[in-house]
Structure formats: C-alpha cells, structure tokens
C-alpha cells in the first residue's frame, strides 16, 4: 500500500437542480518523495478532490464515499475530529491566491505561529523562532523583521512563499498545492517552482500539484492524472502522458497550447466545444460531444461509460477506442502534427 491511497473516491453535492458529481470514482496512489500532477480544466473536479483529501468537505452537504488511506489511516469514515488532528500536521495545503487565503488582520508570523502551536505544545517564543526559521527557509529576506508584517505588505511572490512556510510549519508528509503559481508572474513562478522542488527533496514529502498548466506539471510531476468531468481519463508517468498519451482529450490539451520550445505553427489545434458543467455531464463518455473520434466507438460513446483500462505500456486510459487503434492514431496522425508544432 502506498503512503497515500485513494480508492474510488466520490464526492457528490446534492443541489436543487440535481446531483453534482464533482468527483466520480477517482483512484490513485502516491509515495513519499513523489509528486503527482492533477491536470484539468475548470470544473473538472480537481480542486474538490484536494479539499476532499484534506477532509474539508466533511460536515457539509457533500456526499463522500470511497476510501482515502493516508499512512495506514482511513479518512473518509474517520470522525471529523481525527481528520482535523491530521490537517496542518500530517497534510497541508497551499492555495492558489495567497491574498484571500491569509487573514488580513493578523501578521504573517502570527498565522504561522498559530498553526504550529495547535499541533505542538511549545511556548510562543519557541514557535516564533520556528516561524522566523521557516520564513528564511522559503527565501524571505530579513525574516526576523518580516515575521511581523501583514500579508498586504508582501508582494504576490512573497505571500506565496509565506503561504508555503505556513503549510510547512509542522513538517507535513503530504502537501497539496492547488494552482500554486497561477496568480504569479512568470519569473516569480519559476522561483516558486524551484522552491517547491527543493523543499520536497529536503522534507521527502508527498506532493500533489493541481494545475491547468501542462508546463508546470512537466517541470515537477513524476505521475500525471488527467481529469475531465469529475473522472480520471488518463493516468500514468509523466513521460508516458507527454510522449505517448492515448486519450483524445490529452491530445487536445497538448494541441491547444502554443509552445515556446517549438517552431510556431500557423494554427493551434483546439478542442471544439467547451468543458461540460458538472450538473449536466454528458452520458456515456463525458468527452464524447467534443471528441473527434467519437464515431469510432460503434455508438458506445454516448451510452456506456468507458472503463479506465491499462494500455500496453501500463498507464491507464478511459476510452472506448480499441488500444491498437489509439496507438495507430497517435503514432500516425497526432504525434507528427504535434511535433511539427
């Protein structure tokens, strides 16, 4: 069993308009020291997954089923109290927008000290020293002074560093970063990605990075899970996903991005249509209305949900098309077009 094992996780929200299946049967595992990238567009269920692992949907309206095993403890059926004891200590989260996820009324130091003292029985002085150490560790200049600054006195990049310091305050073994660099400029993004890579090496924690940017996951992730309409559509090692993807949605994502490392093309190759609303996920394969190959499934695309089945190379793909046909398509039609890009 891995350090983190998620089995058939479902997070559904009953609403007046119907059941929203934000996460619908997600299974994955993650070891210490490894990074999993979860990629998807808005409304694919990637953020709900991360909040679900942290137990932040407990006690709300959400209907959660499945299993989440963290280091031998099952979290879905565990009482909220028990999960709260783990949150911050064993698992922590870095949010997208550090300005709205830090309290504007308290100093940065106060907020780190608070998180640390909840889990450790230490004096304020000791906790303060710890906070200063952490701020220095994440690269904030003059941490002894900046510990008394308020979030608004920090720039965006520094705030994100402070946020990382807070998440790391209790040496979590599982760190979830939800779009950690989306709000940042590109030069600052590069700094933060470096920092996260270094810290992960140092603390040997398991890292889940949630993003829509394939560039970011290519930089950090060991494994990638592609989500669409609340389901995993492709899951495998980073090399597999980038160099031999087999799901038409992954192909579409790769074709949609203008790339700096290749000669510019005349045209991008977008996916037609737009992502489905989770309240009204298309029947059968959720991607079929946008899939250029939906007619190759003998009509099953709109009636049957495809299974997440292993490919010859061992990664998992949820597609009705026969394996050999997908491989032929990728080798003969998709890959040549993407590579000239």
């Amino acid at each position: 069993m891995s350090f983190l094992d998620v089995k058939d996780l479902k997070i559904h929200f009953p609403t007046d308009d119907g059941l929203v299946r934000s996460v619908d049967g997600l299974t994955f595992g993650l070891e210490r020291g490894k990074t999993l990238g979860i990629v998807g567009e808005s409304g694919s269920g990637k953020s709900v997954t991360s909040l679900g692992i942290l137990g932040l949907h407990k006690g709300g309206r959400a209907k959660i089923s499945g299993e989440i095993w963290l280091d031998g403890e099952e979290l879905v059926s565990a009482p909220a109290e028990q999960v709260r004891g783990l949150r911050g200590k064993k698992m922590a989260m870095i949010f997208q927008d550090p300005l709205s996820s830090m309290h504007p009324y308290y100093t940065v130091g106060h907020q780190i000290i608070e998180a640390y003292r909840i889990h450790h029985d230490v004096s304020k002085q000791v906790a303060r020293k710890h906070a200063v150490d952490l701020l220095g560790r994440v690269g904030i200049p003059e941490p002894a002074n900046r510990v008394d600054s308020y979030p608004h006195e920090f720039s965006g990049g520094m705030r994100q560093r402070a946020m990382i310091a807070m998440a790391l305050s209790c040496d979590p073994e599982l760190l979830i970063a939800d779009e950690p660099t989306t709000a940042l400029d590109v030069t600052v993004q590069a700094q933060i990605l470096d920092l996260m890579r270094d810290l992960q090496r140092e603390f040997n924690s398991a890292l889940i990075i949630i993003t829509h940017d394939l560039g970011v996951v290519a930089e950090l992730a060991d494994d990638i899970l592609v989500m669409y309409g609340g389901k995993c559509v492709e899951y495998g090692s980073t090399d597999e996903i980038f160099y031999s993807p087999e799901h038409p949605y992954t192909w579409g994502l790769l074709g949609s991005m203008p790339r700096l490392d290749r000669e510019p093309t005349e045209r991008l190759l977008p996916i037609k249509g737009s992502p489905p609303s989770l309240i009204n996920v298309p029947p059968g394969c959720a991607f079929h209305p946008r899939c250029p190959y939906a007619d190759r499934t003998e009509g099953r695309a709109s009636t049957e949900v495809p299974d997440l089945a292993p490919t010859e190379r061992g990664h998992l793909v949820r597609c009705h098309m026969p394996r050999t046909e997908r491989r032929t398509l990728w080798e003969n039609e998709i890959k040549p077009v993407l590579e000239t890009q």
Partner: protein
Amino acid sequence: MSENEPLLSVRNVEKHFPVTAGLFKRQVGAVKAVDGISFDVFKGETLGLVGESGCGKSTTGRLVTRLLEPTGGAIDFEGRDITHLSQGKLRPLRRDMQMIFQDPYSSLNPRHTVGAIVGAPFRIQGVKTDNGVKKAVQEILELVGLNPEHYNRYPHEFSGGQRQRIGIARTLALKPKLIIADEPVSALDVSIQAQVVNLLEDLQKELDLTYVVIAHDLSVVRHISDRVAVMYLGKIVEIAERKRLYSSPMHPYTNALLSAVPVPDPKARKERERIRLKGDVPSPLNPPPACRFHTRCWKAQEICKTVEPPLESLASGHSVACHFPENAPVAATADTAGKD
C-alpha cells in the same frame, strides 16, 4: 495614407498617476505607470506587448484607445494627433479603434441581451445598417462562431469562451481598423484559449484588422504577433520582429522571461539551464534609477546604475535598451549564455 505610414504612432508617451496624502490631497509622488514609450503599429500587423504585472502594458492599451489621457508625449492615429482630444471629438474615432477586454464575466452587462450588447455600438454611433441592426448583429454573431439565434439570450447563459466571443463580436460591430486586445485569452481554459486565438487570427485575415495584443503569456504572444515589445516598469526594453525576439533576445530581461516559462516537455527539465531572477519587480512608485532592471540583472555594472540606456536599434527591426546586450544568438530553449 501611404503603405509605410504607421496606423498608430506612439511617441514618448507617459502616464503618471498622482499619489496624494493628507487632508488637502497634497501630491506626494507619482506612479510612473508608463514612462516614455515609443512604438509604431502598421496596418495589418499584430504587435504583442508583454511584461509582468505592473509593467504598464494595460495602461499603454488604455492610453492608446484614449480611455486614459497621457500626461506627456503624443499619440497619432492615422496621422492625426489624438493625444488630448476631448470626449466629444473622440467619439467618432471610437468606431475605428476598439478594445477586447480580459474578463468576459465583468465586461458584459448581465442585464442586457446579447443583441443589445453587440448592437450598442450601432446605436451609440448612430450607424445605419441596410437591413436593420438585428440583422447586422446576427451576421457578426455568426462571424465569431456564435449561433445567431442566441440574439435574445443573456450573458450568464454562455460559457466563458462564448462570452469572450460576444465581447469580440461587440468589438467588431463597426468594422474597426485597430483592435487593442488586453489579455484576450488569459481568463479562459486551455482548450478554449486555442479556439479564441484561432478566431482572432481568422478575423484578422478576413477583415484586414490591425491588432495590439497585450498579454503576459509569452507563448500566446509569440503565436499571434508579428512584432513583440517587452515592457519592464513602464519602459519598453526591447522591441523586435517576433522571430528575432524569440530566437535571439538581446535584453537580459527578455532572456530571463523566456527561460522562466515552463516548457511542457519533461525531458527538457533536466537539460535546461535557467536564468533565475532574484526578487520581485520593484514598485513603479519608486523605480530604480537609470536602467530599471539593474537591481535584478546579473550583468549590471556601475554604468547601469547611473546612465539610463536608450532604446537603440542594434539590428534591422530590433531595438533594445541595454548597456550590455546579449549579442550572441541565444535560443530560448537551449540557453547557453547568461547563466547564474
């Protein structure tokens, strides 16, 4: 107007926002959002403006469309000085100059139907159409890939990508000559971004449009632009043909920007040498003297702190403001020069 004359010409334009303090709103300083920039935009081309947040790229867009009045310099549109035109005199010009906004959620009035939104330019400008405004609006909706039958729907009934198309339709209503697009795709999902980028390119070919595209995403700008200007703290530091800028950038800042972009190729991460800029962009309230990049530049010497480098043309169509430009051709992906 002759072929070589620019459609839009910007000369030493400045925009300083006053910072006031105290009871009597005494001016204590100025945010130099745009501090003396010059560029030309020729008919039929796309100029990309890139830079990080706070570099003044959006202010530039607003100055050019005269949504803001410059505090210095001159803006010529079709050879006519529009720098200080009054609102009344500007109104007829608005027909030729339109803007696409970043956020398709806040730039459309939620209480108006699509027909009212896209038809508004006709009413405001008093433009007569052959078969009525409704017909004209429906034609434009079709042109941007929306269903003309959605004329009576409200913005909330559309997805983000479709909303952006509505915004583009409104922009195109009066067949403008120049379109300023301020982050036209950054609020959209990846798969939708590509649709909108392609749409902008198709429309340019079809309607002979001229674009100024403002964006922070270097890959999008490279895809869409003919020439690219890089801004840093209110100044243009480098302006060049797209190909030249991306294959042999001269300004250290451009080099750093290009090497900071994460590349979706996991093998490349092991091989790539990256330029790491230290710290953040300084505040435009109190920018560093002389070369504004010297506080973060690895090549900075004494002269960079005392003498401001002018924007000089170092090769045909390639201008750069730097005392120590990188002359060796450097590829964006295989950076060999300028390592830390």
